[in-house]
């Protein structure tokens, strides 16, 4: 026959575990945001928080507002749909400064830097004539659409008779950035 004395330690253990479990449940209730899970396995209000963040990406129209000649140069050409940011950076500071400059003539815009070769660069505005930028789209890879302009670099440079095939800027011997026609 089992008496209370035989199971007293288990009751004590049960009480301790229940207390820990209760604390755990309270902590969980306090820590899980109220709107977690209402739209999916995430905090629903995170969507509003993210939407409220300032946009870093400039539409090409913003650039064209000042650089109309570039818009004209690209019109109807292969690179018309390539985003300015791809070769020139996000230009957040540049655009903000340009807008201030439109009202305050004393504001002068610093010139664009040379691309530092890093695709994750933190530079605000840069100019890239580096072949790496061109090849990030145009190097032939299995599975590319048949009509996409893709090249085998060594073969292409040989065929076209590039004078400085090892130069980083060798693409610009024949092509432009905005109007790419050779």
């Amino acid at each position, binding site marked *: 026959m*089992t*008496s209370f*004395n*035989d*199971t*007293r*330690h*288990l009751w*004590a*253990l049960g009480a*301790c*575990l229940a207390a820990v479990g209760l604390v*755990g449940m309270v*902590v*969980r209730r306090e*820590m*899980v945001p109220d709107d977690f*899970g209402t739209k999916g*396995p995430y905090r629903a209000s995170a969507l509003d928080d993210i939407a409220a963040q300032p946009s870093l990406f400039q539409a090409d129209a913003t650039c064209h507002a000042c650089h109309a000649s570039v818009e004209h140069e690209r019109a109807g050409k292969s690179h018309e749909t390539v985003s300015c940011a791809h070769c020139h950076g996000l230009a957040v500071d540049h655009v903000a400064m340009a807008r201030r400059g439109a009202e305050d003539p004393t504001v002068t815009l610093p010139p664009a830097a040379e691309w530092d070769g890093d*695709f*994750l660069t933190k530079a605000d505005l840069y100019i890239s004539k580096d072949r790496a930028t061109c090849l*990030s789209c145009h*190097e032939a*890879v299995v599975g590319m659409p048949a009509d996409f302009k893709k090249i085998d670099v060594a073969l292409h440079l040989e065929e076209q008779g590039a004078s400085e095939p090892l130069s980083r800027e060798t693409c610009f011997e024949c092509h432009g950035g905005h109007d790419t026609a050779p």
Partner: protein
Amino acid sequence: MEFHALHDAPFIFPNDAHPAWSIMIVLYPYITGMVAGAFVVSTMYHVFHREALRPVAHLAVVTSLCLGACATLPLLLHLHQPLRAFNVVATPSPTSAMAGFGFIYSFYMLVLLVDVWLIFRPAIVERAATATGAWRGVYRALALGVVEITPRAAEIDRRLVYALSVIGIPAACVLHGYVGFLFGAIKANPWWSTSMMPVIFLTSAIVSGIAVLTLLYLFLCQRSDIEPDAECVRSLSRLLWMFLLLAVVFEAIDILHVAYEREEEWHVIRALLSTKLRFSYLTLQVVIGSILPLLLLPLPAFSGRLGAGFRHSIAGVCAVLVLVQVAAMRWNVVVGGQLFSKSFRGFVEYPVDWFGREGLLAAAVVLAMPMVLLWGAMQILPVWPPSPESESGAKS
């Protein structure tokens, strides 16, 4: 060469440029594996009545608890923000593979904690009666205020230890199988995405648990000037050999399957294994950590002619090699899987630092922490040396 296309035209997606999971994420499954493995060894005695493992039965369960207490430490260091590491345990969620960890880890640690408490309750109660000063209070608190054991209570405890050990086996399997599932379920990464991953993780976990116990047992015997129990070492070696064989076979099946299918990811995996992971996979994991101990372990496991000292030395060496194998396997999975871009056309580097929160020094401290805890546990509980009285009290 087949790899020319890969090397000549590398392309790395911007979000693949830096391996995000560091050496701490290597340590996490390494330590969790030992938790599960050590517990499985203890159940060999408590559930399957392998008498030969009696000397390590209590050591195994306490080692498992100490390792488990430190299992989340690498996550804490990796996440940089302490509340994030705490969140995964405090806010478990059944809908998230990551946050499901809260349920699994908490349940397993609960089972382990109660198991250890019940196993050592006779010793705790005895010390609560004989200890003096502050220690008396400590032991009374550990006994939860109940400082007597009736024969019927001892009988109930024995049955509970048996039941908890039985429950603990699937819990330990789920704990480590889950860690493998986390990697296996990442479908974008062909080096991880395989349903074999939980099985591979689980078998290598058991292997690492047996290896760490073999080493601990031999080390403690040496330190306490006790002759290691020949049958215990033999039994551990047999288990180690058997589970290592299973682990190696599962790992080999997985890689052979990918190699034979030669799907689009094979060219990058082949390049990964023959370049970036050449040393850690081929040399460490396969040759030094798998083939060598598989050839050597039959000596302490099955040979009856060799001297005990020689057999125990070989068992110790094999345990070290196997721990190297499992560490290399964790490294190759966790870091290796991040060394190639999801473009399958470019490799990145994982720079290993000595210092810093996720450096080698911090990793060594994390690995040492469970041993420090074990030393602490040995000061307050009769974990070592194994005493016949306390052992018989816990076995059903």
